[in-house]
């Protein structure tokens, strides 16, 4: 039997049929649904008078629009409220599982799926959201889909897909002390570029990856889409099983034993061939800070803002200059001299308990710098918030001058009131630094939770290891 990659194995398990040209029907196990990309899909089903194929595959949650303060008031923005109400109505009507606002299990869709054990190894997981790649950390084939595809999965439990290419990014060796999953993935994107994985499913491998906790693995897979690949994967191992065991949606008892026997095969065969291989030396990775308007525009914190004049490719140089203009940065400025106005610790990239612990350990006994206008922590789910409070992390943040908020997407994309003003500069643990992402004219620098916390304390970027 030919050696297979992890991607090959999961694909084969889910292929319902395939045409000669390779167009296949892929069976979907888990369908996560949120309020922004689903209303038009439900409407489409209704118009065509189609029913849902497998209601129990769906787990729904409002996250993008939910406010992170004053929950007792509900959503005050009428347009946002209509969207959340529409999700509630659709879920009630079809009898779908939904964690509504006010439920302690509510949170960011990519945080709650794994937290509930709704994401399991070997599954296919889809959601109308590009950061569905997060779930690949569980050796699940997980990718974002558009609204038409949301409707397609609801109606048929399948997607029309063509298999993508196999790519492997191996991070060899151990990372230095203080280097986090976020630094690893930003460094990878800096190396391969935002289109580096286009058309591929990327498997992350190597010692630095397997050493990561599930939280860290989710951070890496989360940002696969920023490298252009729809899906990222990490093999299933003991770390995976330890995380999944005992979660509400995970199999129990005999079913668990059956499942783990099957999951033992969820890794690439040793001699499997990849279409593309990239190898990165973990020792080369320093704390990362993005300086531009694309996640590939990233440097180590002790470096300087790059100079477009040094870029030989005129299109790239133009792109760099546009980015610097937008970001209000001068070429050659040392990154650790760049001051920030706001700090955002949250998003599906970095809002899990480990992230909050990392940030809290930096902040503990320190104060947010006076020059920082707002520093906020937005836990990824109600359960994480609760756990953090049980551990006293909320006190640490509040005493340092942070705001401790309710769970949701929040300032990651600023669909609710949490936004950057024009020209405001933010150290953010989210995943996109696009123009206007966190608010029109807002300037985003992507960093790890520890680096965001360090920036909060200093008022400017700094190497957290030297704090």
């Amino acid at each position, binding site marked *: 039997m030919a050696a297979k990659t992890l991607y090959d194995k999961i694909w084969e398990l889910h292929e*319902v*049929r395939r*045409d000669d*040209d390779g167009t296949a*029907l892929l*069976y979907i196990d888990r369908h996560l649904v949120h309020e*922004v*990309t689903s*209303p*038009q899909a439900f*409407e489409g089903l209704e118009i*065509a008078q189609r029913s849902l*194929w497998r209601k129990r595959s769906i787990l729904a949650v409002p996250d*993008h*629009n939910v406010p992170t303060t004053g929950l007792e008031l509900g959503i005050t923005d009428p347009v*946002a409220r*209509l*969207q959340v109400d529409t999700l509630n109505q659709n879920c009630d009507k079809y009898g779908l599982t939904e964690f509504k606002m006010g439920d302690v299990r509510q949170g960011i869709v990519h945080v709650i799926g794994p937290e509930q054990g709704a994401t*399991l190894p*070997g599954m296919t997981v889809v959601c*109308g959201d*590009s950061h*569905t790649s997060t779930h690949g950390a569980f050796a699940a084939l997980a990718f974002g889909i*558009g*609204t*038409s*595809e949301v409707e*397609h999965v609801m*109606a*048929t*439990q*399948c997607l*029309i897909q*063509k298999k*993508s290419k196999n790519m492997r990014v191996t991070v060899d060796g151990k990372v230095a002390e203080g280097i986090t999953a976020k630094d690893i993935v930003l460094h990878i994107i800096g190396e391969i570029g935002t*289109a580096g994985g*286009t*058309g591929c499913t990327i498997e992350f491998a190597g010692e630095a990856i397997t050493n990561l906790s599930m939280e860290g693995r989710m951070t890496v897979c989360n940002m696969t889409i920023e490298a*252009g*690949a*729809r899906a990222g994967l990490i093999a299933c191992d003991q770390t995976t099983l330890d995380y999944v065991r005992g979660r509400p949606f995970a199999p129990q008892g005999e*079913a*668990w034993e*059956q*499942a783990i026997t*099957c999951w033992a095969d969820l890794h690439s065969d040793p001699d499997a061939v990849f279409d593309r291989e990239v190898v990165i030396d973990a020792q080369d990775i320093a704390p990362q800070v993005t300086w531009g308007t694309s996640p590939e525009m990233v440097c180590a914190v002790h470096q300087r803002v790059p100079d477009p004049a040094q870029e030989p490719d005129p*299109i*790239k140089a*133009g*792109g760099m200059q*546009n980015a610097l203009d937008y970001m209000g940065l001068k070429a050659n400025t040392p990154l650790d001299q760049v001051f920030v106005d706001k700090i955002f610790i949250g998003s599906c990239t970095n809002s899990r308990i480990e992230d909050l612990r990392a940030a809290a350990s930096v902040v503990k006994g320190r104060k947010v710098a006076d020059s920082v206008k707002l520093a906020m922590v937005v836990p990824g789910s109600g359960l994480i918030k609760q756990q953090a409070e049980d551990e006293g992390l909320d006190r640490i943040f509040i005493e340092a001058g942070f705001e401790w908020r309710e769970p949701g997407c929040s300032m990651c*994309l600023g*669909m609710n009131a949490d936004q950057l003003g*024009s020209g405001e500069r933010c150290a953010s643990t989210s995943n*996109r630094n*696009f*123009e*206007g992402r966190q608010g*029109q*004219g807002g300037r985003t620098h992507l960093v790890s939770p520890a680096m965001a916390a360090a920036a909060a304390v200093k008022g400017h970027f700094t190497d957290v290891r030297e704090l």
Partner: protein
Amino acid sequence: MEKFEKFTGIVAGIDRPNIDTDAIIPKQYLKSIKRSGFGVNLFDAWRYLDPGEPGQDHSRRRINPDFVLNKDPFKDAQILLARENFACGSSREHAVWALLDFGIKAVIAPSFADIFYNNSFKNGLLPIALGSELVDQLFSELESNEDCQLSIDLENQVVRNASGTEMAFEIEEFRKYCLLNGLDDIGLTMQHAETIKAFEQQYYEKLPWLR
């Protein structure tokens, strides 16, 4: 979905790589629960000088006169020309809806983000990937010839310029067939309902904990 017919239309160029979905349609407009009406907010932050909110009267906003889609004849553009990795970022299908609602029927770029590429076909928008040199050439033609028009012939998989030069493009047979015939994916998949049921049966026998 409407059938994709051969057409000749005005080309507007945005000479930037990595144009992301936040630029194509900013998040505040994603709050809509409809599929239509996004055209006025296409490239909102570039098209207008003032920040926009959903539901506002867009005729009263401050237009950015320098942005290509605000200029004649590009206000009526049906084809968009851009650089590599067009529409990277989020899965929002609103990006496709906004382009279509504005009147764009085809986008030409050296490469596209995967999700956007997929979403386009579900809505009858044609993404055409041409080599970087050809895209370079089209950009320079645009510069020297203000009202540049192109003909898009999906059937024969060619883009034709005013002087008759043809540029061939690749497209998967299945996608082409669906576009040309205006076919809805769900209807096509439903034809395989029995196959899906048979698949499920053996699947859940094999993996009973997922049942």
